[in-house]
């Protein structure tokens, strides 16, 4: 057994005092009652946030609605490489790739739809994107939708949420050589 890192935990010994149950119940009652009266009188330990009226600040890395970043000239940065739709465990990214008139771009997403109803907000698409084209830092809480169609966020919607990417096209070395 020496090869296994096993810690043997002794069973707690129960003396008559513990086993008579009542003192332990009293201890438990003391804890719950303390909490009860504390919260009844001061409410100081209550963790509830009165959601629609009070909102917590989302943490910096909160994963909100997706957004698509754009290039310096305002074109969509995504090149329809399908990395995100491949990694997506919910299979909710639907991209139709097409040839761009601008030969320096070549491939771009003619359609880019995220099915928010299926998205499990795992963030893998962001990790997978080689182009910093998709992000989840819009800070917008995915809200409920009254119509199913509205939950299919299309390219225009996602671009409207977007901003220019902070990444440098061509990578760091590429930028150095460009200068």
């Amino acid at each position, binding site marked *: 057994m020496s090869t296994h890192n096993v810690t043997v935990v002794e069973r707690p010994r129960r003396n008559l005092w513990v086993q008579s149950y009542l003192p332990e119940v009293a201890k438990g009652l003391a804890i719950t009652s303390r909490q009860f009266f504390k919260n009844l009188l001061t409410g100081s330990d209550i963790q509830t946030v009165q959601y629609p009226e009070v909102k917590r600040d989302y943490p910096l890395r909160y994963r909100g609605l997706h957004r698509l970043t754009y290039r310096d000239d305002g074109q969509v940065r995504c090149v329809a490489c399908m990395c995100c739709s*491949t990694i997506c465990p919910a299979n909710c990214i639907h991209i139709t790739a097409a040839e761009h008139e601008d030969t320096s771009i070549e491939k771009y997403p003619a359609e880019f739809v995220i099915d928010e109803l299926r998205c499990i907000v795992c963030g893998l698409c962001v990790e997978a994107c080689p182009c910093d084209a998709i992000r989840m830092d819009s800070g917008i809480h995915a809200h409920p939708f009254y119509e199913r169609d509205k939950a299919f966020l299309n390219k225009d919607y996602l671009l409207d949420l977007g901003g220019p990417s902070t990444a440098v096209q061509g990578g760091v070395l590429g930028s*150095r050589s460009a200068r």
Partner: protein
Amino acid sequence: MPTLTINGKEITVDPGTTVLRAAAMLGIDIPHFCYHPALSVPANCRMCLVEIEKARKLEPSCYAKVGEGMVVHTESPKVIAARRAVLEFILVNHPVDCPICDQAGECKLQDYYVAYDSQPSRVAVPKVGKAKAYPIGPRVVFDGERCILCTRCVRFCDEITGTSELTVAERGDHSEIRTFPGKELDNPYSMNVTDICPVGALTTRDFRFKCRVWLMSSTDSICTGCAKGCNVHLEHFQGEAQRYRPRFNPEVNEYWMCDAGRMSYLELHADRLPSLRVLEDSELSWPRAARKVAALLGEKATGEGVAFVASAQSSCEGLMAGREFVRTMLDDAPVFWTGRPDGDGDAFLIRADKNPNRAGLAGIFGVEVLAQDAHRLLQELERGAIRVLYMMDSTLPFTSDEMKRFRAAVEKLELFVLQAPRRGGLDDLADVLLPSTTHAEQDGSFVNEDGLLQSFWAAYRPRTQALADWEVFVRLARGADRELSFSDFESLHGALHAEQGAAQDAGE
């Protein structure tokens, strides 16, 4: 017979074998770009360098011939370092377009980079720009920046097709694959260069941006473009064929296939029959439809004036089942055949007979049936000798004029049953429509022009109600409470093999 040692394993091979091949026989994979088993060996990429003891320097294994007592190391530190250096060198001007490159996922440069290099670029000077997305031929797109100048494509055009459209122009890091002035890469086999190109420099216009290769599944299949029966990988995604890629078969097509055949996958989803229809009733399940059709056939398809049309597009299994169907259900009606009309052929792969299974048809229904072609059928129809017609396919070798006559004649029929994967412009005339599967949706086999029986496998399920031809026949027979001599694919396939084997033995 020299004996050599590779990575500590001994092997004896024929003299003149290259080290790379000898290693391959031992199951040792040596990375390579420019070497292709069907092409000459230029040894220009240097990816295949190996360490041979007593040699002064690393040797390209694709070119080095084996020698007696040779000791080769393919994974020694020196070799690994050399591979890394070669890769870094190749990547100096490589654009690393992977996100938009159709080769990504099946790119040897990617694979080897991950396996041997995996370091960030140390080059801080601008890369040499070259032609991007250049239409080097009507069906092939060229990207000069991605090209690693292995010259496989050049050699293919020189040695396989003999058309010599391509060459390497310029020098040094400005070298680029170009067509000779006034030429473009337009030969009947031009798309093969996209298969042999180890990177994404040559890609097909058709597959461009269509689907990422890692998403697709691949099923072994047979091209139905002509009677050669080239072996292909049928690659599909979500129940839809995306492309054909030639599958190596030394007896048929080696590594190649023609462009027309490659594009024939487009027919797999075109013009399909949507659903069952018996007279006006189109909301049917197969068992109900089978009973109705069997009743119709029992009522009308007896005595004179019944004809059955077999198809050279159908699988052998379908045809065999059809033969039995004619015997049990159609009173041994006369059999005609149909298929695509003949076209041009050449001496390499392309055959004039554009049907994948005419040989199989002749083997199953007898050679005599070949005389009973669609034109004979048209004559008989116009003569009024046929009341009831059962067609196994809607492919007809007719000109538009003949088609008009055919339609006119068919309209007068008492009963016209069409069992086909495609509408073929006949669905509106048919009294009974029985959708059948294409070869991509069923298991089966074709006999090619050279008499070779080749199997193919179902790649995905049909989206319609379609069933394989043989299954349609089985169901119709059941609808009439009759049994054919088989009820599953295995027994049918076994019977086919027995029959074909016997026929081949008799022929020899």
